[in-house]
């Protein structure tokens, strides 16, 4: 039973971390080598592509912008460049055409490299033919430029605060609204103290 419990918790943790890793923005230092516009036939990987613009027909294929790059470590990375619009994930990106223009403007060759920080979310997976979605591009000083992920720091702290707040909300609700129902008493007076006693009996210690 212990193994089942921990397998379940581990699975949940993997799903949650994977979800955040896919959705939160990341920065790559890359050199843009080219841009292109390719027609993509979506199949079982369609969940990893943007949903069509509002009002547009649900087609099985669509033209998609791509940005081809070389990373600082010499390995290639290809990004798609699609609007997220008002859908998921909530990047509210509506300027893919502008981003494509900027990327094309920043194309450089090996002899005279121009390094940029490519903000993106998503994963590259060759088996599934999926690409991270480029969100914005910024010129940086060099291939070893240091990027501090401020957004992720703030977001993860706020997420932790939200989780702790929901927990407190629930504990308080249980403490003040559910526990008193299982205690006998003439009125609602002193529900707080009775709740304490209840937990003292249940847990063998005095909880706050």
């Amino acid at each position, binding site marked *: 039973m212990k193994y089942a419990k921990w397998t379940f918790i581990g699975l949940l943790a993997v799903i949650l971390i994977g979800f955040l890793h896919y959705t939160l923005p990341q920065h790559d230092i890359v050199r843009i080598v080219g841009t292109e516009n390719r027609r993509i036939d979506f199949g079982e990987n369609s969940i990893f592509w943007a949903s069509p613009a*509002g009002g547009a027909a649900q087609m099985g294929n669509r033209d998609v912008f791509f940005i081809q790059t070389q990373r600082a470590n010499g390995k290639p990375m290809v990004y798609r460049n699609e609007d997220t619009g*008002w859908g998921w994930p909530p990047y509210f990106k509506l*300027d893919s055409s502008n981003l494509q223009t900027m990327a094309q403007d920043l194309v450089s060759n090996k002899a005279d490299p121009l390094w940029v920080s490519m903000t993106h979310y998503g994963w590259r997976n060759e088996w599934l033919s999926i690409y991270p979605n480029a969100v914005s591009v910024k010129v940086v000083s060099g291939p070893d430029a240091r990027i501090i992920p401020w957004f992720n720091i703030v977001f993860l702290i706020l997420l932790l605060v939200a989780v702790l707040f929901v927990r407190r909300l629930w504990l*308080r609700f249980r403490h003040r609204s559910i526990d008193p129902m299982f205690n006998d008493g003439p009125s609602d007076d002193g529900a*707080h103290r009775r709740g304490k006693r209840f937990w003292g009996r249940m847990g063998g210690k005095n909880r706050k």
Partner: protein
Amino acid sequence: MIAFFRFALPGLAGLTLIYVLIGVYARSLARERLEKAWEDPKTGAASCLTREEFIAQGMRAYKHSLRRKLLVLVYIVPVGVVAILVYVMNYR
């Protein structure tokens, strides 16, 4: 435009749920503050009220307090964050 409403309407529904939950929580905190204040001989027993009257009076005051009105921030802050995100993502 349809895409925007498909985002905005469920979003507003979600914010309303959060508003109600935090509202219940904040009211519960206000009530507990009053319960504690009544047990304090300086504020509670000195008021010449029964415990119920003391709490009811305090809750009426809470209803019109700034603290309760600040709950509107539950709507204002996320809408502001989305507006800033749209601006930063597309127009800067």
